[in-house]
């Protein structure tokens, strides 16, 4: 998992006056499961299409295994794509669809037949060989698109929201199947989704994008626990994002109340953004809290209760297994370790952050 298999260097792409990618740098290591995560229209598909060769960047290079493949047509690239809208060949049956790439490569009939059977089993659609794509449901078509790509045993598989049309149960099954595939076949995955939960479950590395800029690259744990800016914090899971002032190392003023924290190096009296995850807000008796508030909303979510607490002029989002009825006065406590301090956006790159957040 060390050497760079794909390296995107200074990639820019503009459609008309719409700059979709601006000087993007990103590398993908061998056998990595890398996820591009971001809101609709942030350039995920565009990035994937540039890797796949369906789109040429205006500037920058795509390096594959040490070679510059920026100008190489898709059929010469050692990677396969699962398209966002399946793109099955509607005039061919399922078996012919799956066999397409193998026939081009002149594989033997026996090899092809074995592969078709194997792939259909894998995506849980045995016996669908002679059906036509139009007669399949969206989820089934999506799984055929996956089967059609993996039979070619590519070095890299590019997947554009491949599970979007599946129901929750099937999606979870397919998530495990994809991870198993990755481990068994040693395929590198570049995966696009706007579902943060899916990204957290499956990825080795998550790339959070917004408006064509990379906001943060990291493991699921880092992205969740140590978001680098307010956009990432907001996009990955629910969170309380508050304005604060870093009084000195390990002490931050939040809404007028000083809180102990563990961050250092922000200087003194620096304006910062503070992230506190809702599950890290502890509700206690009013007299035990660092600040006091009134419960304003209460929803049962299954695993926990979701509450909103009005305190110091801010609606705190709280997840807790304990229930406090609306109107109750409560105290709020946060342990220092759960307070995440972030710099306020300064550069133009990070400006994009606030628009969405």
């Amino acid at each position, binding site marked *: 998992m060390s050497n760079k298999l794909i390296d995107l260097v200074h990639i820019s792409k503009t459609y008309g006056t719409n700059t979709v990618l601006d000087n993007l740098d990103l590398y993908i290591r061998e056998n990595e499961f890398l996820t591009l995560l971001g809101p609709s229209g942030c350039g995920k598909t565009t990035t994937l299409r540039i890797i*796949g*060769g*369906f789109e040429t960047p205006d500037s920058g290079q795509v390096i594959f295994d040490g070679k510059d493949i920026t100008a190489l*047509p*898709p*059929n010469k690239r050692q990677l*396969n*794509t699962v*398209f*966002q*809208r399946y*793109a*099955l*060949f*509607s*005039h*061919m049956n399922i078996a*012919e669809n799956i066999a*397409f*790439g193998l026939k*081009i*490569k002149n594989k033997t009939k026996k090899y092809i037949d074995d592969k078709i059977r194997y792939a259909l089993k894998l995506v849980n659609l045995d016996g669908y060989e002679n059906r036509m794509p139009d007669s399949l449901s969206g989820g089934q078509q999506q799984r055929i698109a996956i089967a*059609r*790509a993996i039979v*070619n045993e590519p070095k890299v598989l590019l997947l554009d929201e491949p599970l979007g049309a599946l129901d929750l149960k099937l999606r979870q099954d397919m998530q495990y199947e994809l991870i198993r595939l990755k481990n068994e076949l040693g395929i590198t995955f570049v995966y696009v989704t706007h579902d943060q939960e899916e990204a957290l479950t499956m990825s080795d590395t998550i790339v959070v994008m917004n408006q064509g800029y990379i906001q943060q690259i990291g493991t699921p744990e880092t992205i969740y626990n140590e978001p680098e800016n307010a956009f990432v914090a907001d996009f990955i899971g629910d969170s309380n994002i508050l304005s604060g002032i870093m009084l000195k190392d390990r002490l931050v003023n939040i809404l007028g109340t000083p809180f102990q924290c563990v961050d250092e190096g922000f200087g003194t009296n620096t304006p910062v953004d503070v992230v506190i995850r809702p599950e890290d807000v502890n509700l206690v008796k009013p007299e035990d809290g660092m600040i006091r508030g009134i419960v304003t909303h209460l929803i049962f979510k299954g695993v926990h209760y979701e509450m909103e607490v009005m305190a110091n002029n801010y609606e705190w989002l709280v997840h807790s297994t304990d229930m406090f009825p609306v109107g109750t006065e409560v105290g709020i406590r946060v342990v220092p370790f759960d307070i995440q301090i972030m710099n306020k956006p300064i550069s133009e790159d990070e400006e994009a952050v606030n628009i969405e957040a």
Partner: protein
Amino acid sequence: MKRRRLLAGPYLFWSVSFIIIPLFLIVCYGLTKADGGFTLENAAHITTPENLKALGLSLLLAFLCTLICLVLAYPLAMILSQSSISQSSFIVLIFILPMWMNFLLRTLAWQTLLEKNGVINTFLSFLHLPQINIINTPYAIVLGMVYDFLPFMVLPIYNVLIKLDKDMINAARDLGANSAQTFVKIILPQSIPGVISGITMVFVPAMTTFVISDLLGGGKVLLIGNVIEQTFKQGSNWHLGSGLSLVLMIFVIASMGIVNKYDKGQSGGSF
């Protein structure tokens, strides 16, 4: 339901009065003698040598015209569907523009162009090049038909090509197909419906035309359309004319049947 029937009213009226009734009249006239008795003689009249010759020539010329149109139209439709909006609308305009003019006028224009001392020959002799004398021959008729009917081949093919899912083509490339393979295995089979309707829209009028053969054939080349026209107008024999029309109609329907069957056989089979 009631409302829908109400809305369908005008169409129903239209198709009954202008399609069903005339068709019924043709069948009635075609299958009866002047005294009103039933007969197949009118239709059987197609087997006279000169009528058979006209029918054969019509089939041949219509086939040639369709073939030439297809060969010209497909690449053009490809180029159109791939060029940017502004480019393609310009090319489309160039194609549509002549269609705004009456088709008789356009055919007459060809007559003037092709005449022995017409524009083209004058120009050729000016350049000291050999003259072309195709006016009043089947060649001139095919030329006129191709010119008149080409847009009817281009548009349906262009329509399917423009609607083709670009990602389907991308997927084929992605799976290793080069552009030629992508064309043969994806684009061509996907565009068959457009080709079929293009063939229908060119073959049927080409098969039945009498105006183009009149104007560019100079009355020397008889197509089945001319034979029928003359039977109606000069011979004033409605029974015989209808009988021959029936035969022609059967020929056209049969040809379309063959084309459609070929289409089904194509898409159902393996690639």
